[in-house]
Structures are given as C-alpha cells and as structure tokens.
C-alpha cells in the first residue's frame, strides 16, 4: 500500500464522516446550520447563553443530536464488526449477520414486544438474544469436528439464523396485529426515528468497549486472516484471539440492533469501501471502517427521514444499495480483495 493512497484514503473516510454530520444536521424539516451547532455546543461548554432560539436548541440537543449520534454509533459499530468478521472468517462476503448476531437480537426484541416490555426491556432482550445466539452458534460449530472449522462455523451461523428467523415468524403470528405487529415490523426493518438522549448510553457503552478491543487488536488481525496453522506458526494464540474478537464484534452489533433494529448490509458494504480507500491492512482498515460506517449511516438516515412524507425504514434503503453492491462484488472479485 503506497503511503499516498492510504493517506488520501483516510482523508476521504474523514471527509465522508464530516459530510454525513453536516448533512444530517442541516437537512430536515427544521434546518440547523453547522454554525448553529458550534454556537450551541460552545454555549453548553462555557455555560454562556447562546442567543439561539429554544426551538433550535431543542432540535440540536433533544431531537436531531441524539439521532445523529445514534446513527454515528450504529454505523461505526456495524462496519467495524463487519471488517473484523471478514478478517476472522477469511471471507469478504460475511457480515455481522453471520453467526446469528442480528437474528438472535431480532428474536429477543420481538419476544419483548410480544410481552409488552418497555423500550429498555426490548433493548435488553435484543442484546441478550444476540449474545446467546452467537454463543449457541459457537458451541454447536466447535463441537462439529469435521472439515474446515471456519466454514463449519459460518454454515452453522446461517442455519441457526434460519431457525431464529422461523422463531421471529412464529412470534409475529402470535402478536396482536393492531398494536404489536406494526411495531415489530418497523423494528425489524431498522429505524432511528425513536432515538432519544436516554438511548445513547446503552448504545455507546457497549459500542465503545467492543470497538476499543477491535481497535487494540487490529494489527494482529492481518496474521489472523491467514490460514489457521500459519497464524499459529507466526506465534498467535489463535483460539483465544478468535473468541475475544467474536465477543467484541457481537457486542457492538447487538448494541446497534438493540438501539435501531436490524440494519442489514452496512457491515458488508462499508468494509469493502474502506478497503478500496486504504487497502486490506487491518491497521488502517479498522479505523477507516469505523469512520466510513458512521458517515454512511448518517447519510442513509438523512435520506430515510427526508425522502417522503413517511420515514423509510433504514433496512430497506441499505438493502436497496447493498444488493447490487453485493452482486457487483461477486462478479468482480477474481483479482483478490484489494
């Protein structure tokens, strides 16, 4: 990787993030300029009056601000988890949905909605569902001792995902079609429309912890993406590292699903865009994925709330972009994943 490409690639990732931030605040029924944000933040920090109208301050701190931060955290979380999973499973076509993280979280959430839990109950259930699903996939996958262990694990994840999907279907059949079903459907399609300041801590906490682990281990992910025996011959405790990385990536994914529902494709598409910008070296890829993922989801979320009179679910927009992207990837991937 030439230093020029990686530097300019990193600059592009930062630019996308800044653009996403600017657009997300500026666009909407109540436009807020970057100057307004700077003034509002400065007044909060210094305790001096900002001179802005209370409506603008409310939009910045109560409505759009939390939503922007949530989009940033979810996008970064899904992208960083996707980059880590792709390296760990040596397969650029996997995403956090693999290993059942998303479908487990979905089942947890719809069960919580079925039993009329509050918003925190739904988030907690999604979180537990995601972690339990991954633990189950890992346990089942590692008791099967034939063939390639990575492939076994991935296939176990796909199969468990299908089973969990059937569970979600069952819960939807049992749900009250007037009150619960629309909530479930909307949640399963992904949305940040309900993001409030109270949601930020349960989202940011796990995301920051998981991301910190992945960022700290990013230099080892290069060797870890080699065949198992080579990685061990290079001196890596591969078994332990794999578990730590899977737990960290699942943590960020589950936190994102708990806050915003299922937003597919981000964890697949963004690491590829990041690889295109800074190359496959995980030392640069992991931070670039986080920056780009945040900016990407901010732009998608801004689209979602401005496209029509009704908010378009995020999962639909990401799928519309992700599907052709995936097909293009499949068709053009012969030269290796640069």
């Amino acid at each position: 990787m030439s230093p020029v490409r990686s530097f300019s690639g990193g600059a592009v990732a930062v630019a996308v993030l800044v653009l996403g931030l600017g657009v997300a605040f500026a666009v909407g029924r109540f436009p807020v300029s970057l100057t307004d944000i700077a003034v509002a933040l400065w007044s909060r920090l210094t305790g001096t009056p900002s001179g802005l109208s209370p409506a603008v301050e409310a939009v910045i701190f109560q409505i759009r601000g939390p939503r922007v931060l949530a989009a940033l955290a979810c996008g970064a979380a899904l992208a960083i988890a996707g980059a880590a999973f792709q390296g760990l499973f040596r397969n650029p076509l996997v995403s956090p949905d693999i290993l059942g993280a998303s479908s487990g979280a979905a089942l947890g959430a719809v069960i919580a909605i079925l039993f009329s839990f509050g918003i925190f109950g739904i988030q907690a259930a999604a979180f537990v569902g995601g972690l339990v699903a991954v633990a189950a996939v890992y346990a089942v996958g590692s008791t099967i001792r034939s063939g390639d262990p990575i492939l076994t694990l991935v296939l176990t994840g796909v199969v468990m995902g299908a089973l969990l999907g059937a569970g979600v279907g069952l819960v939807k059949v049992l749900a009250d079609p007037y009150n619960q079903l629309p909530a479930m459907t909307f949640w399963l399609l992904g949305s940040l429309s309900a993001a409030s300041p109270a949601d930020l801590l349960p989202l940011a906490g796990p995301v920051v912890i998981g991301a910190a682990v992945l960022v700290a281990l990013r230099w080892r992910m290069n060797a870890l993406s080699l065949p198992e025996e080579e990685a061990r011959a290079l001196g890596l405790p591969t078994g332990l590292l794999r578990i730590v990385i899977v737990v960290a990536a699942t943590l960020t994914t589950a936190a994102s699903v708990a806050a915003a529902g299922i937003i597919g494709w981000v964890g697949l598409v963004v690491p590829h865009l990041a690889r295109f910008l800074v190359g496959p070296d995980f030392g640069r890829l992991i931070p670039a994925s986080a920056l780009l993922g945040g900016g990407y989801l901010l732009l998608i979320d801004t689209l979602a709330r401005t496209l029509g009179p009704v908010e378009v679910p995020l999962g639909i927009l990401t799928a519309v972009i992700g599907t052709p992207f995936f097909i293009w990837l499949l068709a053009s991937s012969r030269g290796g994943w640069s």
Partner: protein
Amino acid sequence: MTLGAQDLAFGYRGHPVGQGVSLAVAAGEVLALLGPNGGGKTTLLKTLLGLLPPQAGSVVFDGRDLAVIPVRERARLVAYVPQSHHGTFAFTAFDVVLMGRTAHGGLFARPGAKDRAVAAAMLERLGIAHLSERPVTMISGGERQLVLVARALAQEPRFIVLDEPTASLDFGNQGKVMRQIRSLAADGLGVLFTTHDPNQALGHADRVALLRDGGVMALGPVGEVLSQERLAALYGAPVETVVEPGGRTAFLPG
C-alpha cells in the same frame, strides 16, 4: 542446536499416520524429507512445528520439549513456510513479510521501525524488494513462495520448515527457491523441507530421510541414502539412474 523427533507417533485424533520416527536437523544443515504422496510428510512436518500435538513420543528443540514452549516463543525458534497460496485479501508483499514480526511484538503493538526494517531487509535478501508494494494476489507463484520465505526469515528463527517449497513452481523458479534455501543453511539456520523429487534432495540437501507409510525407511547423507534400489522401494516403482560424465547423478522415473 537441533530440532528433532524422538520416537514420535503423529497423526490426527483417531487417525494415526505414523510412528516410531526419530530424526533431527542441526543448525546449518539442510534435511530433506522425501517420500510418496500419502506417506505422512506433511503431517510429520506439522507435528514438528507444534501445530499438531504428538500422539506419542516428543518433538524436542535443543533438549526442551516443544510442547511446553509457549506459542509466541516457538515462533521465534521455528518458522513455517507453507505451500504458496493466494490468500483471501490482497495484502502487499511488504505487509505479508511484516506479519512475520508478529511474535516479536506485544498483542496490541503496532509494528515498529525495527520490524519494518527487518521486513524490508528480508525482501532485499531474497531479491524481491521490487515487489514490496505489489499485492501478493497479483504476483507469480514463484514470487509468492519467495515472499513466504521472506516472512519466515522475518521471524528471525533458528529453524525453518518448508512444506514442498517448489510444488506448483515452474522449472526456473524451482531452482531459484532451492538456491535460497541452501544459502539459509550457509547462514547458520537449520532447514527442513519436504519434497517428492529425489533430485531436489540430492542437489540441495545435506541429509535425507525417506518416509514411507508413516515410518522412516532410511536416514543419512544424501549420497549414501539415495540409491536406485532404495528409491524403487520407497515409491514402489522402477527408477532409472543417469550419471553425467562429470559424476553428477540424477534419478528418473523408470
């Protein structure tokens, strides 16, 4: 200093491959492991590297049981050159060689200036410095094999173990890789490689071990061990010998 097997039984759980193997490679020596396909060469190699646990007996590094040496320290003693493969991601040759420095830094450490210098020096030493910035998915099989040798050297090991280093290489590249292997031993490394070509063992190794059905059929200096009769017995097929007027010998499948 030696790396060796003592009365070693090796294989996979519930699937023994070989037993009773005792051999050792010394610093500065090239030992070739020769045998037919399915004779257990690769499995023995992985056991010697500590990648597979011995089923009985032990792998000994300089008097210490390899099994009690931590994985990180092991990587600074013995390096592994696998058969050339594409890999999943288009890392540059430099990035791949830099991975050889894994065991020299902490788990969270960014590769430092010294690591980068060692990686660059190893690329230079193998004559492939010009490939540094090329993705390994875009270079030839022979070049990729040299990159993997450079990565092993970047580990700064005492012993280097190569699995069929010339399989899938064209004729010219085979010679290039084998000459590099020879020069490693001249620098004091112990080298062990597997091959199914007796001429490669004859031309580039000091000693050879003949492996058949998971056991050592013969072990000794190449000139003494490699004979028409032994090779015919090893492969279960007729072998012809060609002797140059200058005295050099080559074997041909009969």
